[in-house]
């Protein structure tokens, strides 16, 4: 069943973009047709991570109603092995574009929500995409909440840092519950290496369910090499035997078999 998945977090730097790109790549490797959207218009980063060159139309243009969806999709399938299709739609990193996006009014945001909701028809139904990933900006702001409302499933990335825990909990209760969103939590950059051991996993899972009232989608230990690799390659593609790639595959399986 095709889905729009939003990846969100309370604080910045929790690994949303790397998670979105690599999870999308994992699905593409399984032969799916996927697209990642950069919805962090205030601090675009996907263009850098994917090392995209020669972009003429940005996702900003689609939301501004000055470009059709076809013209803002960037085909990256060649970078992956296998039959899957991997697309990206990027946020414009020019200062002028960032300024423009942060000065939008309520009416514009309402239309933007309409344009995001329309992707279900244009991409999922008509163009047969399997998964669309919305990589959002952290915290409570228009572009992120629009993405959450338009999504079928939301992944919340958290590091479990003190500065992040309280805010994430509040956000889950005061935002997600109100919109009745299906949500999964990814605990990222876990320092305790043994946390991913099977025995400890169940214990951690119960703990998280209790603390956040949201099911755990995945536990990702702190891999320095993943953080350092940023931009140079797509991890899930280039390091198939790395534990991070295996964790991603598990998450993808949960999402695909609807165990969420």
């Amino acid at each position, binding site marked *: 069943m095709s889905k729009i998945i939003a990846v969100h977090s309370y604080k910045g730097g929790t690994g949303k973009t790397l998670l979105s790109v690599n999870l999308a790549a994992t699905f593409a490797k399984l032969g799916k047709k996927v697209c990642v959207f950069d919805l962090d218009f205030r601090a675009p980063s996907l263009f850098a991570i994917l090392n995209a060159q020669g972009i003429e139309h940005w996702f900003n243009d689609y939301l501004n109603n000055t470009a059709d969806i076809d013209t803002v999709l960037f085909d990256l399938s060649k970078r992956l092995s296998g039959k899957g299709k991997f697309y990206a739609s990027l946020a414009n990193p020019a200062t002028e574009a960032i300024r423009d996006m942060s000065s939008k009014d*309520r*009416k514009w945001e*309402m239309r933007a*929500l*309409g344009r995001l909701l329309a992707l279900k028809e244009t991409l999922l139904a008509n163009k047969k995409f399997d998964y669309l990933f919305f990589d959002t900006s952290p915290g409570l702001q228009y572009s992120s909440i*629009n993405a959450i*409302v338009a999504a079928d499933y939301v992944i919340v990335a958290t590091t479990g840092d003190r500065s992040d825990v309280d805010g994430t909990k509040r956000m889950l209760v005061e935002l997600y519950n*109100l919109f009745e969103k299906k949500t999964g939590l990814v605990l990222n950059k876990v320092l305790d290496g043994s946390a991913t051991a099977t025995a400890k996993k169940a214990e951690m899972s119960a703990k998280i369910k209790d603390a956040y009232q949201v099911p755990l989608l995945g536990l990702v230990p702190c891999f320095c090499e993943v953080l350092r690799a940023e931009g140079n390659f797509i991890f899930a593609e280039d390091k198939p035997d790395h534990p991070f790639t295996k964790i991603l595959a598990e998450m993808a399986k949960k999402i695909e078999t609807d165990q969420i």
Partner: protein
Amino acid sequence: MKEQQLTTKGPIAILEKIEESLEKINEKMEVIIEIQKNSDVNQSRTTMLPDASLDVMTLLSMPDHLRKTAMTICRCGRATAEEISVTTTRARAVESAYLNQLVIMGYLKKERKGRKAYFFVDPEARS
């Protein structure tokens, strides 16, 4: 003369006419009751401008019962109370009341086609 007219129309037609009128009255009553119920929460809202936008922050600040209806109409774009009630699993009459309240608040527009009333987000704001 009047009696003759009635008999030529047939009793079913008359009953249908009565049913239609009753439905209209019922809808209006529901709106009145609903407005009274939520008058404390929405006192300032009910006097809002006729082109208020239904954006996500507005959705967030709405009382729960109205948000559910507003979210559903956001997704379908245009629907009858009956269609909304299928998604929200609440009674049609309840949805009708909430939708009418959203119209009064300026978030939705209403259009009648025959016996059906369609609710939608202002296309001018959405286009």
